[in-house]
């Protein structure tokens, strides 16, 4: 009897479940319909009364634009830059944005709902499965034909810059966005070694260049009583090849004569580990190295416990120097070159972004009914007028022409409402955030206000990284999930090994044992995938 009852209960709960499932089935239908709509052929239907021959264009259409853009204004529509942008291009735009920091979830939900705006600003390069997949699945447009027809300015730029052209398309040659491009090498560099020059002067030492120089400097600083002469935020301080690069290798992937290499597997990496463990044992590196975060590093530097670090021109020098000077007016933070092994060598690696930064680029959705208008709107950013407007805003308001040089006004640099320059700029220009245009060097020249900062990016830019970088390679979508699986194990192993050897819990001999383990994690397959992707990239 009891069993019987239990069975009936089970049957009925299954019934309830299936009713619920039914509900979901109908749900998924609507979902499908949504997706079906998406596939609908994207016919360009331009209405009469539209004149797109010159800017500002005339149109009775309104475009929808999805973007995350955080400013002190509550909505994008209230930001003066975007108001003026609509006026100058003549295109009315309605903005939709996710709450700050919710970009990924926001886009995910947007795609799932099947209700796409005309323009979507996002990191389309990093889209799961790659941009080619976003096109083939019918979400964004392949722009090749439209660029040919409607985007003369952007097309001209690509023709003049074949090396950029290679970056912004896929392996199949598809263009998928209007990208944000760094117009000058100085805009691509922001990180490198920083030293307390005042302390070095006191000790009679020059700015270090070689590993031996660095060693001597650290030794001397230690002798001067500094608790942690060299401080970096864990392993991330080595990310771009500082110190590792001196030994002819890197923390991650690079290429040499077309051959893809995984840095930690190269013999130089062992030498790097040996040196670092020696430095750590001698107390030259912060004792807390593994646990140091940004806040701890700030404290180390601003309290004068550290004399050498790896940091940014803005977020490093620009943040620390004012604080340091409050207690010590003589403090000087100066940039130093990436260390090399022998004097006179050019550093092999250093931080340097690609010209195409991948974030904040704009794609046109496959469902857009106003493709020509959308393309022309975005193309304006690459025109002469658009270039000035995106980088410097409106003349007389956000910049003044002084001897042919666009100089930012106090509205940006010394805001009457006390906004920090970064926040004020976001209201009037896009030069400091990104978007569909080419960034101008004259932005960074003014934005980095301290001479040390200006000098820094020049010194740090002097590396051979262009020769060794892998490029914006794209494994296929199957490869990329295989890659992620392998690399998750590999990174765990390498990070663990690197720290344990440096901090001395394991002897340097352990390196060989780790390399054997690495083989069993299928690192060879990962190299194969990267090599194939790199070959495809080079053949673009």
């Amino acid at each position, binding site marked *: 009897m009891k069993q019987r009852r239990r069975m009936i209960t089970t049957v009925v709960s299954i019934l309830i479940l299936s009713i*619920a499932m039914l509900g979901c089935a109908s749900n998924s239908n609507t979902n*499908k319909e949504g997706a079906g709509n998406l596939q609908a052929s994207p016919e360009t239907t331009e209405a009469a009364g539209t004149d797109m021959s010159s800017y500002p264009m005339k149109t009775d259409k309104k475009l929808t634009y999805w973007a995350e853009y955080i400013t002190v204004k509550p909505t994008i529509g209230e930001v003066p830059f975007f108001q003026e942008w609509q006026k100058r291009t003549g295109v009315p735009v309605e903005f939709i944005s996710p709450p700050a920091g919710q970009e990924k979830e926001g886009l995910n939900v947007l795609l799932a709902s099947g209700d796409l705006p005309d323009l979507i600003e996002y990191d389309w390069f990093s889209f*799961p499965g790659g941009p080619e997949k976003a096109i083939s699945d019918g979400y964004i447009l392949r722009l090749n034909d439209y660029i040919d027809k409607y985007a003369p300015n952007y097309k001209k730029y690509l023709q003049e810059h074949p090396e950029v052209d290679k970056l912004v398309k896929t392996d199949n040659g598809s263009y998928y966005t209007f990208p944000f491009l760094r117009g000058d090498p100085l805009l691509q560099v922001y990180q490198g070694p920083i030293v307390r020059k005042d302390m070095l002067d006191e000790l009679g030492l020059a700015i270090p260049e070689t590993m031996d120089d660095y060693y001597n400097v650290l030794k001397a600083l230690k002798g001067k009583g500094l608790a942690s002469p060299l401080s970096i935020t864990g392993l991330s301080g080595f990310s771009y090849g500082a110190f590792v690069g001196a030994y002819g290798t890197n923390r991650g992937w690079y290429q040499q004569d077309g051959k893809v290499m995984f840095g930690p597997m190269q013999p130089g990496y062992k030498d790097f580990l040996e040196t670092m463990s020696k430095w750590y044992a001698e107390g030259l590196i912060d004792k807390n190295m593994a646990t140091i975060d940004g806040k701890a590093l700030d404290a180390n530097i601003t309290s004068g416990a550290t004399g050498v670090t790896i940091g940014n021109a803005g977020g490093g020098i620009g943040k620390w120097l004012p604080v340091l000077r409050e207690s010590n007016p003589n403090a000087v933070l100066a940039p130093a070159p990436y260390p090399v092994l022998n004097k006179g060598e050019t550093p092999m690696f250093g931080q340097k972004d690609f010209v195409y930064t991948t974030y904040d680029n704009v794609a046109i959705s496959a469902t857009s009914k106003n493709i020509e208008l959308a393309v022309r709107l975005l193309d304006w950013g690459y025109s002469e007028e658009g270039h000035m407007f995106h980088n410097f805003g409106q003349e007389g308001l956000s910049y003044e022409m002084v001897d042919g040089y666009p100089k930012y006004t106090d509205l940006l640099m010394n805001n009457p409402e006390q906004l920090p320059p970064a926040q004020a700029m976001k209201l009037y220009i896009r030069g400091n955030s990104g978007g569909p245009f080419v960034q101008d060097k004259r932005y960074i020249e003014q934005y980095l206000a301290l001479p040390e900062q200006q000098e820094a990016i020049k010194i740090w830019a002097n590396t051979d990284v262009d020769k060794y970088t892998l490029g914006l390679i794209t494994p296929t979508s199957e490869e990329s999930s295989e890659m992620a699986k392998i690399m*998750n194990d590999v990174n765990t192993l390498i990070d663990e090994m690197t720290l344990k050897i440096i901090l001395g819990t394991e002897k340097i001999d352990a390196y060989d044992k780790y390399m054997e383990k690495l083989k069993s994690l299928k690192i060879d397959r990962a190299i194969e995938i990267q090599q194939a992707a790199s070959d495809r990239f080079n053949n673009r």
Partner: protein
Amino acid sequence: MEKVAAAGGMPDTRAVAVRRRFVKDFLTNKYLYIMMIPVIAYYAVFHYAPMYGAIIAFKDYTPIKGVLDSKWVGLEHFSSFFGSYYFWRILKNTLIISLYSLLFEFPAPIILAIIINEVRNKVFKKTVQLITYMPYFISMIVIAGMIKDFTKSDGIITMLLTYFGGENTAMLQHPQLFRPIYIVSEIWQKIGWESIIYLAALMGIDQEQYEAARMDGAGRFKQIWYVTLPGILPTITILFILRMGNMLNVGFEKIILLYNPMIYETADVISSFVYRKGLLEFGWSYSAAVGLFNSVVNLMLLIAANWISRRVNSHSLW
């Protein structure tokens, strides 16, 4: 009726009996069932209707294609997870941290509630409650910042321990210290908050029982043992069972804020490992597969805990 009998192949009388039971049950309890409608409707619409989404664990989900149209890949994500070089390590770490929490962090609020219950001074009592519950509201990132600050080479806790013969380096660089730091800080942050539910349960104890115990000459300890504890035992049991159903859910947030590669060997857990993989690619399906694995194990543990508890102390979820 005949149909049921024919289909089930059982004697008519039993079918009648079953039917009678149904009808009788419905007649006696119909108002209860009506009261239950909003609850069941809620679970049907907002939990069961979206549940089809769980199948992405067996698919290669992309938002573009949606849940139903994404490609089937079977158990690929599961085998990828189980096949990881680090699978056993992260599983072990997860279980050990959970077990330690169960042993040390779970009883802490119970003890606090009992102690608070013994306080006679009302103002003091309320103050203790209010203050101990506050750290719960401070965001994890700030709490983790404090922990790191206190345990670095010249942090206040490290110095204290050095005084008693400890080593003068950042505590979070020592694999063997991670678990104690994790558990103690967990207690620190949550003891007050988690004691509230027990305090509420304590209020339900009949005061006459204490009087009776006193009459029998029971001291404070005996009163706690024979009156207070049995009084909140149902609550303890239920929370314990629910806790068992959470064994594999060690959240990644606190872990990733505290750990570093030096202590991966004790600190890396399932969720932090999956988090790191998420940084390499969006692993919707992969994390769904891991989530499903966790859920199945958790559910089994919950059922086991419930079964044991029912036999041991006759309190249980069902």
